[in-house]
């Protein structure tokens, strides 16, 4: 199974080309970073991978299925783990309830079993269990950990993270990057991370794809040399 594949994908935004001829293939247990400045299309890549945006041309395959198909898309998204910038936690639920929600929804777990799974996920991340606060009142660190934990709680074969550790202090951010790479190595989870600053990621992986800043003309995705 190929967790994620983009083949000659084109996407426009407000009549302007945003992504042109994106070719990207992520194998099982592989880690890849897509780096680019603001407005270069990183969040669009996440939306395309989840099937919540349709490309003008080309194909996107998520876990060997079509994520944009209304019949199969929700199931594929449930099996993968997405941590988008645009997808906020539910503010009226506690951090733990937010993390447990995919478990309870897709697997029908009761509250106690879901709580145990949440604590297990935080242990996997090397973090303490979340405090019993509503997401609306949690600190940025706590919300960022919960955002990642919610994507991991179902132990997906693919994790897509938009701006891991954004807004956190450098130490916490670096720990998060180390966690992502550990997931790819130890849990055989494919990881696609998108970021403005590839510095912390480059220290851990040679495989970085750069999205150039938007220009008047079309954009190109540059693949690094193997």
């Amino acid at each position: 199974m190929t967790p994620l594949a983009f083949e000659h994908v084109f996407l426009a935004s407000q009549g302007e080309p945003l992504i042109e001829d994106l070719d990207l293939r992520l194998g099982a247990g592989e880690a890849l970073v897509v780096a680019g400045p603001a407005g270069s299309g990183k969040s669009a890549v996440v939306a395309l991978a989840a099937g919540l945006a349709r490309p003008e041309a080309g194909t996107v395959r998520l876990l060997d299925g079509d994520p944009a198909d209304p019949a199969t898309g929700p199931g594929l998204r449930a099996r993968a783990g997405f941590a988008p910038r645009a997808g906020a936690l539910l503010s009226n639920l506690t951090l733990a309830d937010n993390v447990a929600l995919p478990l309870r929804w897709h697997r029908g777990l009761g509250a106690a079993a879901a709580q145990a799974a949440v604590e297990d996920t935080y242990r996997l991340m090397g973090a303490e269990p979340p405090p019993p606060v509503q997401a609306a009142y949690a600190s940025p660190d706590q919300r960022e950990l919960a955002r990642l934990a919610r994507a991991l709680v179902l132990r997906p074969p693919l994790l897509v993270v938009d701006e891991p550790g954004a807004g956190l202090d450098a130490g916490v951010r670096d720990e998060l990057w180390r966690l992502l790479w550990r997931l790819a190595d130890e849990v055989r989870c494919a990881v696609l991370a998108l970021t403005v600053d590839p510095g912390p990621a480059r220290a851990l992986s040679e495989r970085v794809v750069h999205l150039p800043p938007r220009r008047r003309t079309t954009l190109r995705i540059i693949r690094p040399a193997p």
Partner: protein
Amino acid sequence: MSALLTPVDALGRGTISLVSYLVEIAAAVALALRHLLLPGRGGRVAGDVLARQVFFTGVQAVPFVLLLAGLTATALVAQVQVQASGLGAGLGPLLATLLVRELGPLLTALVVIGRSGTAIATELANMRVAGEIDGLAYAGIDPFRYLVVPRLAGMAVALVCLTLVWTAAAVVTGFALARLWLGNAAPPWGAYAESLALAFNLTDPLVVLAKTLVPGLVVAAIACREGLACDDAVTGVPRAASRAVVRSIAAVVIWNVLVTLVAVA
């Protein structure tokens, strides 16, 4: 466009807009009922949301509904006493007609619109602005099934139950006031209850159910629709709540009048 055609054009566009809105609400109600009847993912989670909705819309509104029912019955009985110079055997049929068949369902629906309709529209609009709806979609959770279906079901159940509470409170208050005003000249409880029962016919439960169950579904559908259709900006939130209230009141009043006309025909 000629000045003569402009109002015609506006009328046409308005009619099309209204019809498409009604179809959208009807489709939302139909889809929600389908989700309720067919099992699917997230049943336990949606059940929790439904229970919270019934508690907020129904249980927490009981004190206010009791007060409103008591005051409305007081005003009605007082007017009858002044206008008709006596109550006696006529009180039961009067309460049945005005309070139970008409005012009870309408005023209870207005309470629910004011409390829960605005709350739902505001909550969903805020979730839209904050990106929480997108978060659900990215997690493979159907926002309609998680957010809309339990709210429709919860509000319908709550409105039916609240109307029963209203009815009981109004009937008891009417009796108590009659005894207060007329003393021993007022009918005893047995005669009062009998006159009330005789004033009802077999179709009345169906009429009251139609005036509570359908508005419960429709008010929730309108509130959810307005909240989810909010602009991606904070300024859209109060507009969503305001539209939800106005459109819900119009829908409930029109529907209740139609049911009354059909019932008396």
